[in-house]
Each structure stands twice: as structure tokens, then as C-alpha cells.
């Protein structure tokens, strides 16, 4: 399927300038299409979170982008609209971040401020990015956002500890979607949740995506999950993307050894028993 690209990453490298320097992301090139779900699979330390932070220009020293481009494409190819995020000034990036590209962080359920109400934290997005918005409109918009993610506007005055993990995760998604970004980067958004809640959240994301038309980069080590929800999957290892393909290509015809090994790490839930696990008393 050919889609207009929303984001193109080309030749991106990130180095942690410690001794000896660590090349966390090496020469990575990826595109995310309009309305696409791109899965980014990999294990701890492979550079997947560093890549996400680099795209958002959220890296802190000693991490540093040492090469490559991150191009955010203009809507409908409008002239002069493509911007290379790596060349923007911090102030320009501040305006663009969250407005165009938002992120749901790893452990998001714990990234809400415990001493502020949900409403106050959501309103913060608008005071920062939509300063002209009046207080009444702000409250109404925040309420609508909570309704949209299925938490309910009556939770505006709740504190984070009064919500379950799944509800807090929904609040984080509402916050990320507040400005109707074109791209949502989700870093292990459901890892801490149990399967039933995870499934609800995934269905919610898929419904919102149909409604609002944003693209998603979904980062996780859970390859079976990515196979179900992604259009395409990129597999990362040691800072490099070792393989990119449609979910079906990765599932049926993975080419790279590491991808095969990763696939082989997940025993089948309902399919045949692989020979990699114990067979009764026969081992």
C-alpha cells in the first residue's frame, strides 16, 4: 500500500558521548505513512527508545544526534512544508512538538504528576500550546478529551492515584492526542498492563486512529502483539534496523536471522507446540 509519508527518518545516528562512546542508533532509515501503524520491535538496549527520543528531539547529553535527518512532511505536499526536525531551533521545536508529533512514554501510567488533578495536567497542554484559548473552553476541551478516551469528563478533578493503571494510560493517550497530532509515538504503552486491559487500550487506539487519522509508531519487545496491530514492522538490534516488512512478510517470510530468533522466542498460544519447548517427559 502506498501512502503519503508523514515522517521520513534517513541515516539517523545517535551517540552517547561517554567513554568509550556508545552508538545507540546507527544509520537508521524509516518512513511512516499517513494513517499507518509502524511497529518498532527490539529488546532492551537495541536503541528503540533512543530513536523515539531523537525523533522528538528530546535527547539529553551525553546523547547526541551525530548524523542524518528527520523530515516531517507537509500536509498534502504543500510547498516548502517539509521540515527537517534536526535543524530546528529549540523554540521552533517546542512549537512543533506535541502539536504535530506527540508521544506516550514508557511507564506512562506513572508519569502523571501525583499532586495535580488530571484536569490541571491536561489543561497544561493548552495553556502552553494554545495560549489564546479561554478557561471555559479549555475545561470543556479537556472534558471532551477524557470522554473521547473512555475515562469520562467527571474524572477531571480526580488525582492520578484515584484511577486504575489502565485509566491512567488512557489519560496519557488523551494528553498525547490533545492537539490532534499527525503522528503518535508510543513507547511500550501497554507493557505494564495485563492482557485484558491491554486489549481494551489497543482497541481504543485503533478506534481513535480511524476517527482522527493519525499515524502511529508503536515500540515494544512484544512481537506477537506487533504482528497483530501493525501495518509494517521494523526490527531493531544493536542500534540498527535489521529488517523492515509488512506484518505478514515478517510473520511468514522473515529474512534476518535475528527476526527469526525473536519470532522463535514466543511459543504459540493456540498453534502447534514448537520443538523448542518441553514435550511431556520426553526431553
Amino acid at each position: 500500500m502506498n501512502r503519503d509519508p508523514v515522517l521520513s527518518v534517513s541515516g539517523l545516528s545517535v551517540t552517547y558521548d561517554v567513554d568509550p562512546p556508545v552508538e545507540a542508533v546507527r544509520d537508521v532509515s524509516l518512513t511512516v505513512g499517513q494513517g499507518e501503524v509502524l511497529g518498532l520491535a527490539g529488546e532492551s538496549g537495541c536503541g528503540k527508545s533512543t530513536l523515539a527520543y531523537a525523533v522528538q528531539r528530546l535527547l539529553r547529553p551525553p546523547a547526541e544526534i551525530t548524523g542524518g535527518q528527520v523530515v516531517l512532511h507537509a500536509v498534502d505536499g504543500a510547498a516548502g512544508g517539509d521540515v527537517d526536525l534536526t535543524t530546528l531551533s529549540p523554540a521552533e521545536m517546542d512549537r512543533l512538538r506535541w502539536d504535530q508529533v506527540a508521544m506516550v512514554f514508557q511507564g506512562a501510567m506513572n508519569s502523571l504528576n501525583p499532586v495535580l488533578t488530571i484536569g490541571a495536567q491536561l489543561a497544561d497542554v493548552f495553556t502552553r500550546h494554545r495560549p489564546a484559548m479561554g478557561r471555559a473552553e479549555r475545561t470543556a476541551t479537556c472534558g471532551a478529551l477524557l470522554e473521547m478516551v473512555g475515562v469520562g469528563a467527571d474524572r477531571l478533578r480526580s488525582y492520578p492515584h484515584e484511577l486504575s493503571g489502565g485509566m491512567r494510560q488512557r489519560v496519557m493517550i488523551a494528553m498525547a492526542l490533545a492537539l490532534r497530532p499527525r503522528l503518535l509515538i508510543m513507547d511500550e504503552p501497554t507493557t505494564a498492563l495485563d492482557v485484558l486491559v491491554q486489549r481494551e487500550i489497543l482497541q481504543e487506539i485503533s478506534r481513535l486512529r480511524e476517527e482522527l487519522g493519525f499515524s502511529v509508531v508503536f515500540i515494544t519487545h512484544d512481537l506477537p502483539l506487533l504482528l497483530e496491530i501493525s501495518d509494517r514492522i521494523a526490527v531493531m538490534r544493536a542500534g540498527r534496523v535489521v529488517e523492515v516488512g509488512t506484518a505478514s512478510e515478517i510473520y511468514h517470510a522473515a529474512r534476518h536471522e535475528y527476526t527469526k530468533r525473536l519470532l522463535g522466542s514466543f511459543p504459540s498460544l493456540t498453534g502447534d507446540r514448537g520443538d523448542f519447548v518441553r514435550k511431556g517427559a520426553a526431553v
Partner: protein
Amino acid sequence: MTTLELRGLTKRYRVRGSGHMLALDDVDLSITSGRTVALVGQSGSGKSTIAKIITQLERETSGRVLLDGAPIPRRGRGLRAYRQQVRMVFQDPFASLNPYHTVHHHIARPLLLDRVVPRAGVDDEVAGLLEKVRLEPGLAARRPHELSGGQRQRVAIARALASRPALLVADEPVSMLDVSIRLGVLNLLAELQEADGLGVLYITHDLATARHFSDEIVVLHHGRVVERGPSDDVILHPRHEYTRALRDASPDPDRHFGGGRTADTTGSRS
């Protein structure tokens, strides 16, 4: 042959302001040498409470815990002897090992405390246990921060095996580990179980590994056992709607694509 039985186990926690919370409600469960029972359920279903009661880190409110038919001892030397028989492997290998101590210290401690071998034989026993969990003997001098997550969990398993227990309670033993090494650790547990005739209670929220690494699955929901049976039956033909909901919510690309995935399964054995 050792059997641990939980009969009518109930645990109530007092909750400030609102009375009580029923964490376990009339649970029956038994673990026998040579068999693996998987205990599955969502967070909050009571899985870890069962582990804590089995290891007597918590007291049950009512019900009985029987080892080979006799009530388990509650204190003193008897309790220590019981805990020598029933060991636990914890979820987080980054938290369950003491950062100040070497691998050798972690494994030697139960050997000395339980007088498993004479003092002079401790070093050999530590080396043997490391070999058993497929770690280099040279790792004995290292401290936890010098080890990977998988190596740490192997140390935790070696420590649990040091007192030569009959039963092992493994509470989410691989959920903190990187995916490509999880099967390696589970296969290790499975092999040790067969070699030593261990009985294992495998506590997990992962239905796929529960199915493949256990003989029986017990499904816990709000502190009650809602379904139990041979592992393939429970996953492939669940009778209870909660089991079905759990299964259907779990990612299952083989169902999604109708099978035929590529996978290199040769590397994951070790």
C-alpha cells in the same frame, strides 16, 4: 514424592476505612514432585498471595496448608526445615540479589544455613550449582551488577536449588527478562524439574508459556479458582468465560495469520 496441598485457602486483608478485601476465596491447589502447575490470572487475582502463603511470608485467614498431609510448621526450626523443602524464585532478578554480595555468597549462604554440605565442600557445591544453571564457574566472584538479567535469574535459581528443595514456587520468573532469553530460562527450569523431579508452581500472566511449560493450568479470578485442567485443554478448549476472555485478549499471531510463521527455534534451546 512430596506433595503440598492448599485446602480451602482464604485470605482477607484488612483495608483501612472499608473493612476487608477478600484476596483468596476458598482455593484448593496441590503441587507434586515432578509436575508443573501454572497459576494464571490478571494482576490482583491473588496469584502472588498464594505464593506468599506457601512460603509463609503471609499467614492465611483460614484454610489449611499441608505438606505430605501434615500441617506446615509456623515458626522456628520446623519452619526453616519446611522452607528448605519449598523454595521461591522471585520475579525481579535486579531486586532479589544483594548488590553488595558476590554470586558465591548468594549461593553459599543457603548451603551454610541449612548445612546442606560440610563447610569444606561449599566451594565445590557452588561450582556444581552454577554448572547446573549453565553459568561459568568464574562468575562466582562477580557481583550482581556485572551480570545480565538472564544470568542474575540463573543465580537466583541456583540459590533456590541450593537447599535441594522438593518444590519450587516461581513467581513470574521471566517477565522481567528480555524476550530472547525467556525461553532459555524456562527450558532450564523444565530440565531441572525433570532431572531432580522437582514440583513447580509457575505463576504467570502469560498463557502461552503456561500452556507449554506446565502439566496443569489453574485459572484464578478475583481470588477464586474458576477453571483448572490439563494445560492444552484449558487453553484450547476453555470452559469458563473468564479463561476464554483471557485467551482471546492475548496476542496470538498464529490465529491472526492462520499459522505458517517463520522462526528459528534452534537458538532458543540453550
